[in-house]
């Protein structure tokens, strides 16, 4: 279970994340779901990587 929203960086359990959910289909994650740090994101024509300095890399 993610603690933080990977789109806006706020706590998942706080507030309305409907807009974040809509955005997610066309956006890579921007914030680490574990610590809310802004991640270094690299988008390529067919994928993306998102790296948190503390929690490592995600890709899609």
């Amino acid at each position, binding site marked *: 279970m993610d603690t933080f929203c990977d789109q806006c960086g706020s706590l998942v359990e706080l507030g309305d994340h409907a807009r974040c959910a809509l955005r997610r289909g*066309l956006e890579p994650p921007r914030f680490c779901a574990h610590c809310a740090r802004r991640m270094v994101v690299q988008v390529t024509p067919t994928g993306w990587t998102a790296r948190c300095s503390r929690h490592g890399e995600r890709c899609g």
Partner: protein
Amino acid sequence: MADSRTVTILDMARSQVLESGHGLTQDQVLDVLALPDDELDPLLELAHEVRMRWCGPEVEVEGIISLKTGGCPEDCHFCAQSGLFDSPVRSAWLDIPMLVEAAKQTAKTGATEFCIVAAVRGPNARLMAQVAAGIAAIRDEVDINIACSLGMLTPAQVDELAAMGVHRYNHNLETARSYFPQVVTTHTWEERWETLRLVRDAGMEVCCGGIVGMGETPAQRAEFAAQLAELGPDEVPLNFFNPRPGTPFGDLETLPVADALRIVAAFRLALPRTILRFAGGREITLGDLGARQGLLGGVNAVIVGNYLTTLGRPAEADIDLLGELHMPIKALNATL
């Protein structure tokens, strides 16, 4: 029901653009942009006819990659990569192996164009060296045309890029000259125009478009189309505004679908022979149907896959659509 004015502008466009190949004037583009929704279908059909007559059925397919992301010193109000705004996009540099891999991924989709982009005011020596090394590495492994978009250039940098074999340079004017100061304050529209002039003089193809839906008026859209026609670029990438969190334009709405499609058709009628490329924001503005409507409404080029910092439709979806529409992908090194 179409009124006499509606019939007149479409009839004039048919005669002037379709039959004679002369693009619409600024005032005529404004008339097209004022067409009612019930005239949208005939407008798109005419724009498609114009594209087929003056450009042919081929579609130029391109992939793009961000070599240097974020941290830009400029204040383009639509852009998540400005270092002046509280955007979630962090700075990043792509290394050469990943750049080559991205070029390979792009070529595998069937694309013949690969554009290397950097979020900068203009390239410094480090970036120019990285671009040179990247282009050399791509050429060793991938057969694809290479374009660049590195901001404003000096004459020496233009010559360097031409010598590297960059066949096309992208530098968007972004919007009408009269609206530009509302969008960017750290440099001028005229500075961008100067880079485009240098690129043209150096013999590289000119790629210049912009973003529609940033709060400009229909008259300013017509003005922008006329200014692009005056420039005469080889390619016009048409981006649809996609609000970026943290930017000054982050709370603007996207364009209504009908307005976006009218703009596509109007730009085709203003630029009958230009490569008109569907670029960023089309998914969020037009939805999945947008690709089909655009390709049947004047567009003859697409960016496939993802964009610089956002995601796009899967490349296969667009390639499959081109097959369904019997629109062949432009062959490598062919000229539309």
